[in-house]
């Protein structure tokens, strides 16, 4: 009948985990939401500058004027040159071609040795993409939690919501209860159209909260959405449910 979780301990552990994750967070990751940009340096000799996907290594093809299409062999040459450049700068990095790798000794990744769990994904197949360490997971988790926590803060603060009559979301929806995000999109009878969760958040902000609706890209609306979904982890999606 009753349920009594150990809230204090849980919260403290979570806080500690978040703290330790934040300390090791690189500055680039801390910048919220802006996708990474890789500006290409200007050509020095009137050619075309090509950059590697690491966002750092670049070379200039002098024979290729800006706007010209390289031939296939030119392209291949450029790719090889770039790769050679990158390997010169990263002598300790392990890099292998999947086909040429048969029978090669597995390389010891210092990162994945230092952190024992969870096992890094994709490494058996020699992929670099999706080769993540547990540190990566911690960082992502912390970032996500920060986003959700920001939503929680706004959800509980009528001033942050832009409300005008002292009403905040949690007053009717403790722990996000009765927001049923898993049922959207659905035909909202009262609105006489199909609504998304964000439409209903906006509706509540405008009506019971007596504030101004938020733009779909408003960081506050995004954070509120994040918090509400986070409260329903594990509930099966059931769009259109009434």
């Amino acid at each position, binding site marked *: 009948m*009753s349920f009594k979780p150990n*809230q204090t301990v849980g919260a403290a552990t979570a806080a500690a985990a978040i703290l330790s994750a934040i300390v090791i967070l690189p500055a680039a990751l801390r910048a919220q939401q802006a996708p990474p940009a890789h500006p290409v340096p200007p050509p020095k000799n009137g050619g075309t500058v090509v950059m590697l996907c690491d966002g750092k290594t670049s070379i200039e093809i002098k024979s290729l004027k800006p706007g010209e299409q390289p031939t296939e062999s030119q392209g291949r040459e450029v790719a090889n040159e770039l790769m050679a450049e990158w390997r010169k700068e990263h002598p300790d990095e392990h890099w292998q071609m999947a086909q040429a790798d048969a029978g090669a000794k597995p390389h010891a990744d210092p990162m994945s040795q230092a952190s024992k769990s969870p096992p890094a994904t994709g490494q058996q197949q020699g992929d670099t993409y999706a080769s993540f360490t547990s540190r990566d997971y911690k960082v992502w988790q912390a970032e996500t939690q920060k986003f959700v926590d920001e939503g929680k803060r706004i959800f*509980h603060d009528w001033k942050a919501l832009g409300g005008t*009559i002292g009403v905040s979301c*949690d007053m009717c929806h403790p722990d996000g209860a009765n927001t049923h995000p898993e049922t959207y999109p659905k035909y909202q009878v*009262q609105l*006489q159209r199909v609504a998304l969760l964000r439409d209903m958040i906006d509706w509540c902000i405008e009506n019971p909260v007596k504030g101004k*609706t938020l733009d779909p890209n408003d960081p506050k609306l995004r954070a509120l959405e994040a918090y509400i979904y986070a409260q329903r982890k594990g509930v099966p999606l059931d769009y259109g449910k009434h």
Partner: protein
Amino acid sequence: MAARHKSVETKFMEERDRVLRALRNLDRRSFIKVVAATAGAVIAKGLMPPHSFQLVTIANAAPDKASAASGMNGQPPFTFAYISDTHLYERTLNQRFIRAALKAVEDVNALDPQPDFVLFGGDLAQLGTPQQLELGREILKEVKAPVKMMVGEHDWFLDLGEKWQELFGPPNYSFDWKGVHVVVLMSVHEKDFWTARRMTPEERMATVAGLDNGVQSRFEVGEPQREWLKNDLAKVSSSTPILVFSHSPLYKYYYNWNFWTDDADQVQAILRRFDKVTVIHGHTHQMLFNQIGNISFYGMLSTAWPWPYAPQGLPALTIQMNRADPFDQFDACGDGRMEVRADGLVDKIYNLWDRNPVTVKADYLRSRGKIDRPPAPQFASY
């Protein structure tokens, strides 16, 4: 966005209200005639399935002096009404909750016959400021019947009850009424969570006001008051019906939201020797009932907003109220009335605004749900 769109239900209820207002001055006999005619017309037009037409229920719920005079069984020796959980802010900030509180005052003033008294169920104020409490007192002054005050946590934790007690007197007391012993408890004490955290009174109040923050302690009646209760009941015979008013539920429903009374077991033990005990509580803002041993529990509605049902711990005997229509301020809110029967048991009428009233008979709970089952909701919680 389109605030002008109303739900089908809301439109129907508005229509029904208009009809009822027009009918209010008719006597009962012609009222039923008109109702039957209206119902017939509506069904003939195919507007409504016949089983869902509500006006008939309202007619039955209207006061029936004729059958009372004939000495029909089960007529109450007295009735009382309640208003609860108004959560008033200062009038300059929020008119919404004031409107709702006034609506409830209108309701109880319109009761005919008038109730013997009106219980105020606690959480008069939202954040316990003198202005909020005084505004509440002003609104309750409009109630024609005598008002019995009970305190809620939203009234208490700014100044630990100083202003409330100045306005309304001691927070726990008892009195006898037509053969029933009535006890009003102060059941929202909390162990000190604020000193160690160096909270200001405002921070303490805001913490208690939040349901889902997990920081506050759980409600309790507390040892001194349990002693007081024991003494108060010492002289009362076990066949006397007992009516207990408490803001917190006096049982353990859902810990995380403080739908919870930590010393509920001890309080229940004190009440165990009596044959008939009814606990009327506030705080949970929903249709909620429970039976533990000899004790029947009923939760009061709020005028301000409904709480969702908790994800765990809902008493098996509770029939959920229909899911609230968020587009209607008053939906799933309301007030209520209790009919204390000749034998001292209590039938309870949930006066849900914009919906049919729901009656929860004492026999439903005492029979553990075998008889008099209230109607099931069309839409339960998600």
